[in-house]
């Protein structure tokens, strides 16, 4: 079976590719790049990508799929359906499931559930410590053998520097990146939003930026000492970004990611006490947002990851103090990246693809992904930069609807998602700015609107 993605603009930063090419897919792999005048197989299915961007499949390094254990919030199948609708061909779920993904059996189970769903690839992240209790190291080697791509205790960051140091020494031997949610809870405990003028104004307990700064600096010092690869999750403060910038200049093996909500919103969004503005790290103040944008522009920030954190409406319908942290993000990330980064001229499309595909694949060493060079896996994200659309929580494929971006209008969207050569998602709306005639591909699988 051959699929030809014709007339698209192919962007593949790993290959310095940024021009019109036809992409031929065969048996789940990229078979060839063909110039406009090169002949194409007569019997291939054709997807006309005129006016569209064809990119290596986007990889979300940071999601919560809630399975096993909290299937009322999300399942691997529903999370993957949301992922492919948002343009993500691969997602990397954090281990804070119930039970915690701290052993190979859970890791394997997650991968099997993803295979059953048949939508996005799932590359689990294992726990650093057993039960993420911060005490004993989890079986990282076994989890890696089962398919884990990194280790993290995400929302329960290892508080003890001695154990974190040992975890890095151990993870290094297995070539596993250590991901840290940087938060010194002795400084942030009880807090529900960014500490600053707005938290004082609203009478909500603040989480100071320095709780993140201190932990990020600690991790960087430990990474320098151990030689391990530290990846700072959802970086949100000026101090942490500056620490990463300095560490990179020093040659320390550090990378970091940012979420779309942190490059879009500030703590002002909390006025009104909408619990869909509550997440950790919290929405920061304007100066931090500006530091994030500068970090995206100058390359300090390597990756855009959603921290997709579904919660049931009943849980979010509580007092602001008591509602759980986290918002969904898989289906709004590309729209937000276009609105806030691309259309504002901060980054170009090549850099967007780097942030969403090339770099995540490089950091997690996902062989054959993050590039469309012939021979690689045919995971493809197809984007219409001009499509005007409105996100609705009620339309979300996630089981949870806890997004603060309900009814927000975007210009730019993923319009088709191909995983392993199969088209698993295709958007119905057409660009209202450019009218592209498109043929309907025959190979449609999974959830399609």
């Amino acid at each position, binding site marked *: 079976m051959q699929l030809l993605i014709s007339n698209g603009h192919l962007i593949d930063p790993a290959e310095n590719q940024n021009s019109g090419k036809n992409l031929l897919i065969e048996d789940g792999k990229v078979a060839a790049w063909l110039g406009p005048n090169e002949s194409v197989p007569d019997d291939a299915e054709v997807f006309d990508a005129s006016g569209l961007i064809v990119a290596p499949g986007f990889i979300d390094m940071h999601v919560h799929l809630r399975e096993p254990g909290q299937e009322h919030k999300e399942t691997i199948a529903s999370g993957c359906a949301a992922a492919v609708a948002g343009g993500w061909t691969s997602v990397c779920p954090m281990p804070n499931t119930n039970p915690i993904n701290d052993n190979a059996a859970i890791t394997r189970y997650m991968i099997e559930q993803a295979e059953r769903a048949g939508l996005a690839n799932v590359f689990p992240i294992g726990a650093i410590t057993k039960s993420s209790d911060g005490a004993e190291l989890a079986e990282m080697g076994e989890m890696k053998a089962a398919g884990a791509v990194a280790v993290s205790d995400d929302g329960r960051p290892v508080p003890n520097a001695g154990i974190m140091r040992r975890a890095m020494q151990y993870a290094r031997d297995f070539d596993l990146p250590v991901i840290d949610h940087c938060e010194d809870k002795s400084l942030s405990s009880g807090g529900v939003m960014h*500490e*600053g*003028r707005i938290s*004082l*104004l*609203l*009478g*909500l*307990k603040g989480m100071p930026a320095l709780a993140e700064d201190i932990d990020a600096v600690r991790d960087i010092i430990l990474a320098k000492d151990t030689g391990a690869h530290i990846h700072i999750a959802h970086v949100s403060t000026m101090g942490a970004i500056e620490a990463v910038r300095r560490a990179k200049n020093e040659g320390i093996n550090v990378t970091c990611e940012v979420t779309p909500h942190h490059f879009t919103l500030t703590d002002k969004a909390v006025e*009104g*006490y909408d619990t869909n503005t509550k997440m950790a790290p919290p929405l920061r103040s304007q100066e931090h947002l500006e530091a994030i944008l500068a970090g995206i522009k100058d390359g300090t920030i390597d990756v855009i990851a959603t921290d997709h954190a579904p919660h049931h409406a*009943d849980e979010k*319908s*509580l*007092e*602001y*103090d*008591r509602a759980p942290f986290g918002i969904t993000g898989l289906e709004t990330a590309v729209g937000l990246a276009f609105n806030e980064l691309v259309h504002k001229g901060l980054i170009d499309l090549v850099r967007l693809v780097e942030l969403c595909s090339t770099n995540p694949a490089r950091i997690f060493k996902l062989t054959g992904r993050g590039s469309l060079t012939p021979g690689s896996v045919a995971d493809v994200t197809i984007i219409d930069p001009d499509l005007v659309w409105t996100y609705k929580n009620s339309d979300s494929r996630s089981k949870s609807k806890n997004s603060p971006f309900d009814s927000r209008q975007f210009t730019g969207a993923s319009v088709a998602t191909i995983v392993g050569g199969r088209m698993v998602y295709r958007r119905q709306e057409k660009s209202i700015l450019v009218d592209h005639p498109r043929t309907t591909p025959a190979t449609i699988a999974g959830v399609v609107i």
Partner: protein
Amino acid sequence: MTFDSGIRNPQSATRNLLEKPFRRRDLLGIRDLTAAEIIGILDTAENFSEISTREVKKVPALRGKTVINLFFEASTRTRTSFELAAKRLSADAVNISVSSSSVSKGETLLDTAMNLDAMAPDCIVVRHSSAGVPHQLAKVSKAAIVNAGDGANEHPTQALLDAMTIREHKKQIDGLEVAIVGDILHSRVARSNIHLLTKMGAKVRVAGPGTLVPEDFRHLVENGLEVCTHVEDAIEGADVVMILRIQRERQDAAYFPSLREYSIHYGLTNERLDLARKDAIVLHPGPMNRGIEIASEVADSSRSLILDQVKYGVAVRMAVLYLATGGATVNG
């Protein structure tokens, strides 16, 4: 047939509240009000205050209206004050005390609110230990929501009764210097007062231990607020000294070493009060910890207006309930 609603000129106040961009006339905080709206409420309250001095302390202004006092947090004075205010205006008042652990029984905050709302009250007066609960209820409730204190956010009727007390003794708020001393960080009384007093043209100085008076407080409002390191600097030359209650339970969080040390360094004694203007008045939202944040000789002196505050509290809440429930139509 005519009746005396107790209102001499209700229009000035109600017009302003009606101009608020809300479906209902919620009172969620002072932060949302303009100076004109604040004056309108205070004028209405002044007109109502006379009712409580009558032999028969009741007017039919809110006859047929229902007020629910929904208290998720223990309170004696504020709840009694709201209840009396409703009853003196002939509203039917129902008091509900909800354990904040009701969520553990499976009911969310919004379930509770919507169940009450289904019984068609005209106004829900809500107190809760979490900031923002009145705002969350206002989004789903058809009844007017009046904030009776939400976490560390606001306590608007307390600030209004403080303002009424100040107005009665100082004639006007504009131009006054007001010191607020104590646990500013956790105080909804301080926040509401800072908003109200600065909107009305007063200069406010806050002071207390550095752990309870964050530097960022300087930026809370655009004008008229100063953060002082020393209590003496705040009190010096003040027309009004407002003392906040020290919540003993905060001791566990170690914001200061001991009550003894607090009383020595931050308590309002006669010596510290002597730094204020000779005619300075002292306010305290109660209940007082005598000998800790305020010395008994200050609390019991003629400069202390703590019982006046309680008295005006009823009048202010009558005005707020009246305006919130659309009582403006009584005379109209």
